[in-house]
């Protein structure tokens, strides 16, 4: 019991939105900054996503060491503001793989979620 809770405390469990952002970052590669990230999330989820929430999530992931940020050049169409590019770190990739493995395990043998029943 003690070992389990200690193990859980050491791991950074991602929320579903954090996982979504991580997957979008991986998908976008070098072009991952605020605008395409929010558009991609909107396109795939079909919901409007507040930019503030996207940035808050990215900041949290950065603090956890799963994402690294880098400033681009300021551009006129952005009112002289620089783009902030985000990319997934090695640690972030490891966490995504772990989460995927866990979810795949949890997904197996669930009769209630079999096609046509849910």
């Amino acid at each position: 019991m003690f070992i389990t809770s200690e193990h859980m405390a050491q791991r950074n469990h991602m929320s579903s939105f954090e996982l979504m952002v991580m997957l979008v970052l991986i998908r976008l590669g070098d072009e991952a900054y605020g605008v395409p990230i929010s558009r991609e999330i909107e396109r795939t989820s079909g919901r409007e996503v507040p930019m503030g929430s996207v940035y808050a999530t990215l900041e949290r992931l950065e603090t956890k060491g799963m994402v690294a940020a880098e400033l681009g050049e300021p551009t006129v169409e952005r009112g002289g503001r620089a783009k902030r590019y985000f990319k997934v770190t090695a640690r972030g990739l490891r966490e995504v793989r772990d989460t995927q493995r866990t979810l795949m395990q949890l997904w197996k043998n669930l009769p209630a979620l079999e096609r046509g029943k849910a």
Partner: protein
Amino acid sequence: MNHTSVPRIATWLLKRFGCSPKNDSLVGDLIEHRQSGRSRFWYWKQVLVAIAAGLVGEIREHKLLTVRAIAIGWSVPILYHFVFHPFIVEMLWRLEPWIVVQHPSFYHSYYHDLERFVWGESGSLLQFLALQCLLGFLNGWLVARLNRGNPRMPVMAYAASVSICAMMNWTYYLLVTGQMPPLFPPILFVFVVADQLSVVVILAGGGLLRDSKRKDAFRATTT
């Protein structure tokens, strides 16, 4: 490129009150979205959500600091209420009613005199507003002064607590207290405006409305 106008006040609000150090990039992203055809309403909504999300994130990260800031901000009116009430308040009411109006018990004890107080005595309303502003400014200054390292979040948390309490107060009077006579709408308006004004002066007292070194500090961190 489509030159759609960007809501300047919204941008100013985000730059001033956004708690994230990455606000400049966020503003750039919002401008880019706006240029690609998003509405002004969408822009405003994004700005307000970004400010709220930033503040909530900071509060989550610094819970103790938040509690301390709110406690400091409220300590002056609460001490005043519990230490001086009811003796001094009664005395002050006879001498200077505009001091007592700051007091929560004022609304209970002197409710029937509100109309006379606001409109009947020359200067009362102005004195009330001036005192409200002065107290708000001083409390904002105090909270900022005691959180010199990063005053933005503590001052905003305190201002938010004042705003929430004011809203709860008026909701209570409007919905729950059925026995009281209804407030004369212009008076209600004056008190609601005064409450919200005190939020603005708290922010001013905390130095959040100044175009200060923060901008330079922010630029320094991003370059």
